[in-house]
């Protein structure tokens, strides 16, 4: 990959949709200092999508894609879920394989890229929901951490299987009632951030997407640490407003409320990761 893949043949430019032309002319490629403050002005790397009006997951997508330090050389690995509705609309290379094997696919791609392009930085980022990360794909996820694969795993935790009608997931909180969990969940929420630490991740963060600047900082730190040290894990709370019975403009209030409770900002940084983060801060990249 290179920036050239986003160049449009001049002879065909008049026939190309304006959104694609904007990607070449107004998107922030080749700038590691890009971030959420490009959002009011620049062309974003995600286009119109089919997520519900007011869905916090789409906020998360906007912040993550605006914060990638090296989007032209980043590969996104995704999995089944609400998030998979968005991947056809993002301007990066994405791979959607089986439900739950996203971290295994990412491991293979990262190793191959390191072998094929030893002199280039290639970031591999996994974006998946709570069902793919913690239920169906837990084995692949944890084993990629055990193997110290240099990938960033980002979990969109909406605490439910949302687009299949509202079944409980491993990340649903105890007692929560959904349409297809009428008795309420009987067991506690899986502490995935703690499992990630115990499994060898060098940088782990748990937060909501109520603070764009915080999300940007966390994503950049996670990617820089994954590049040089080992696996990193980011746990984002992106509530499903439909399944918990909220209106489309209630998402931010819901996340701000959870900021003080079970999604209070939490960050774990290993000693090796601290060195990388300090260096990147001195370089002005975080």
């Amino acid at each position: 990959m290179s920036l050239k893949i986003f160049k449009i043949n001049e002879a065909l430019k008049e026939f190309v949709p304006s959104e694609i032309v904007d990607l070449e002319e107004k998107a922030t490629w080749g700038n590691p200092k890009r971030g959420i403050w490009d959002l009011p002005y620049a062309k974003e790397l995600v286009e119109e999508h089919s997520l519900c009006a007011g869905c916090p997951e789409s906020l998360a997508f906007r912040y993550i894609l605006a914060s990638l330090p090296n989007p032209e050389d980043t590969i996104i690995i995704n999995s089944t879920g609400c998030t998979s509705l968005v991947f056809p609309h993002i301007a990066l290379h994405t791979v959607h394989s089986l439900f739950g094997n996203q971290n295994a696919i990412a491991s293979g791609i990262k190793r191959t890229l390191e072998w094929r392009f030893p002199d280039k930085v290639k970031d591999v980022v996994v974006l998946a929901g709570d069902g793919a990360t913690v239920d169906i794909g837990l084995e692949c996820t944890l084993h990629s951490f055990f193997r110290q694969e240099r990938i960033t795993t980002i979990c969109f935790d909406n605490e439910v299987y949302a687009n299949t009608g509202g079944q409980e997931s491993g990340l649903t909180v105890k007692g929560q009632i959904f349409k297809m969990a009428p008795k309420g969940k009987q067991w506690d929420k899986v502490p995935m951030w703690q499992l990630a630490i115990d499994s060898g991740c060098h940088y782990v963060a748990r937060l909501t997407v109520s603070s764009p600047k915080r999300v940007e900082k966390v994503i950049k730190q996670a990617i820089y640490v994954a590049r040089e040290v080992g696996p990193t894990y980011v746990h984002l709370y992106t509530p499903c407003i439909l399944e918990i019975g909220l209106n489309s403009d209630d998402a931010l209030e819901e996340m701000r409320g959870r900021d003080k409770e079970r999604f209070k900002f939490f960050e774990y940084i290993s000693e090796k990761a601290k060195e990388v983060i300090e260096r990147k801060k001195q370089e002005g990249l975080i």
Partner: protein
Amino acid sequence: MYYVAQVIRDECTKYNCKQCTLFCTEPNTLMYTDEGHHAYVITERCKGCALCVYVCSTLLKRDSIEMVYAENRDVAGVR
């Protein structure tokens, strides 16, 4: 018939916060112009969730965005 967001220019130009552009859930829908010193809505992309109104009015008390019937909107996304 549905609602879309529309920026109130005279109110928005008093501030330089751009917070609505960050909290819009749709990409490239709420943008900001430095020349005009105000945000504006690309109304064809707006799904009408009103999260921007929550940010602008409830959180920031700036009342610079309103929801209007799509058929009554200003196509510039600002009035």
